[in-house]
């Protein structure tokens, strides 16, 4: 490593950071590809089918075949569409889904950027993802896409507030916005009982459901709503432009599962006291969260639009506000067990 450092001189930090970014993004892309296969397999078994099993051994090469198919398809730009914004929208989506990974701690020392305001950064970056959907809806010059974009905008603004309040509870537990410190604050003698999910249980539930809503996944996928508005915001997209929206959706699922694992389920900490923590625990928790996403999709019918709004504004926000007060008072009493 010293040899390269001398060879490249002042450009070395740039090269080294780029290498680290590639080392994070490439596994995510692989995980996204195999998450699509896992989704088809899991939902297949839930519906008493087998799922894809033709390409490669046990269908394991299916995602690669899908990617090749999408790469070779034509990108059609509809008449009257705003060409620049039409092509910018998927780029914004994937940018928001990948940039947030910069502050995610995989291990006690394994993090790209150990930022003080890490949690705020994640919130700010993920809140920019909605522009991909809105711009796609507007630039497509199509009624269905436009309706999908509007629905998504209203939904994401509603659920972001509940999600933000749920995260305020996490801040109260850890006294820090740094994601690494948030995990370290959950370390305790009782293993998985000392994690945040017990004292903040209502917020954990609100966070998980808001995460499903934020990623536009079933049963909150009214922005796509194929039975009402065909495919919503991405109805006019084809080929690679569509594939990038697809990638962004699945990368976002992995991201919110990771965030849930870090903030409520102890990140890289081991659930059994005594066992050493490590990145494998984080991966296990993320996979556990992702399985819930797939399970939800196979189980629940799509929410009606006004019911989604009611749930966000009239149920989740009051629940989180009340629990903030409860936790605030509870922390001051001797009955508080999580120190």
């Amino acid at each position, binding site marked *: 490593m010293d040899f390269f450092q001398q060879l490249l001189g002042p450009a070395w930090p740039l090269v080294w950071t780029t290498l680290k970014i590639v080392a994070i993004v490439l596994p995510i892309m692989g995980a996204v590809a195999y998450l699509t296969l896992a989704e088809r397999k899991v939902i297949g078994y839930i519906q008493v089918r087998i799922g894809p099993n033709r390409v490669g051994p046990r269908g394991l090469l299916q995602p690669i075949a899908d990617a090749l198919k999408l790469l070779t398809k034509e990108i059609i730009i509809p008449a009257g569409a705003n060409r620049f*914004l039409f092509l910018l929208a998927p780029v914004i989506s994937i940018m928001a889904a990948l940039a947030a990974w910069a502050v995610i701690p995989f291990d006690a020392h394994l993090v790209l950027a150990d*930022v*003080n*305001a890490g949690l*705020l*950064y994640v*919130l*700010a*970056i993920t*809140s*920019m993802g*909605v*522009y991909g959907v*809105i*711009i796609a809806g*507007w630039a497509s010059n199509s009624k269905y896409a*436009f309706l999908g*974009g*509007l629905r998504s*905008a*209203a939904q*994401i*603004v509603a659920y*972001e507030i509940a999600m933000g309040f749920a995260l305020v509870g996490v801040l109260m537990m850890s006294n820090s*916005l740094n994601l690494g410190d948030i995990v370290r604050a959950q370390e305790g003698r009782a293993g998985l009982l000392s994690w945040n999910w017990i004292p903040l249980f209502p917020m954990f539930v609100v966070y998980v459901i808001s995460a499903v809503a934020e990623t536009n996944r079933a049963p909150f996928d009214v922005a796509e709503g194929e039975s009402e508005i065909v495919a919503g915001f991405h109805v006019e997209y084809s080929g690679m432009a569509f594939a990038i929206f697809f990638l962004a959706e699945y990368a976002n699922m992995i991201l919110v599962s990771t965030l849930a694992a870090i903030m409520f389920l102890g990140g890289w900490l081991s659930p059994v006291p005594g066992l050493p923590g490590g990145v494998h625990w984080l991966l296990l928790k993320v996979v556990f969260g992702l399985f819930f996403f797939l399970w939800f999709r196979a189980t629940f019918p799509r929410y*009606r639009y*006004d*019911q989604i709004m*009611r749930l966000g504004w*009239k149920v989740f926000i009051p629940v989180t506000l009340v629990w903030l007060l409860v936790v605030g008072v509870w922390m001051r009493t001797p009955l508080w067990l999580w120190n």
Partner: protein
Amino acid sequence: MSFQTAIFYAFAAILLFAALRVITARNPVHSALFLVLAFVTAAGLWMLLEAEFLAIVLVLVYVGAVMVLFLFVVMMLDINLDRLREGYWDYLVPALVVAGVMVLEMATILLGRYFSLEGMPRPSPRPADYSNTRELGRLVYTEYVYPFEVAAVLLLVAIVAAIALTLRARKDSKFQDPARQVKVKRADRVRLVSMPAEKPAGGGKEG
């Protein structure tokens, strides 16, 4: 020129360009998107000033929430550009007067003796583990607690007023109440009636 200065000039140029396009773009949706670009660039400038918390909150609140709602409204407007251009010359004179006053006001502050750059000492750079957020929180809830509470009450009044202005429900319009819909039980919708099978009157013979 140091790296930071170069970044400052690049961001400042983008900010000025975006701000100019906000008022000159023909399409209001493009204007709103340029405003988003201006906010993001301004956040970058604040980051250069080591104000991480404010910079990220600017993106979170203005880009993530306020501008989304702005776009939401602007995209739904049916805009006739010709009608917007009507009366351009009538408004030009008052607009120039307003602009002149604003330039004059800013000039008195920026060019005056009392607010020159020499009066402001350059803040010393903080160590890397200095938490901007913690410091801001401490100040807001100790030294500036009363101004902060007054601002909060003002905002609350504005929220209440805004909701009160829009809460003009028409009595004759029909609407669904999801809260009542989800509470519905089977007994509210279906009545099970026990109907014993009747024996045919003739007895035995089937027709």
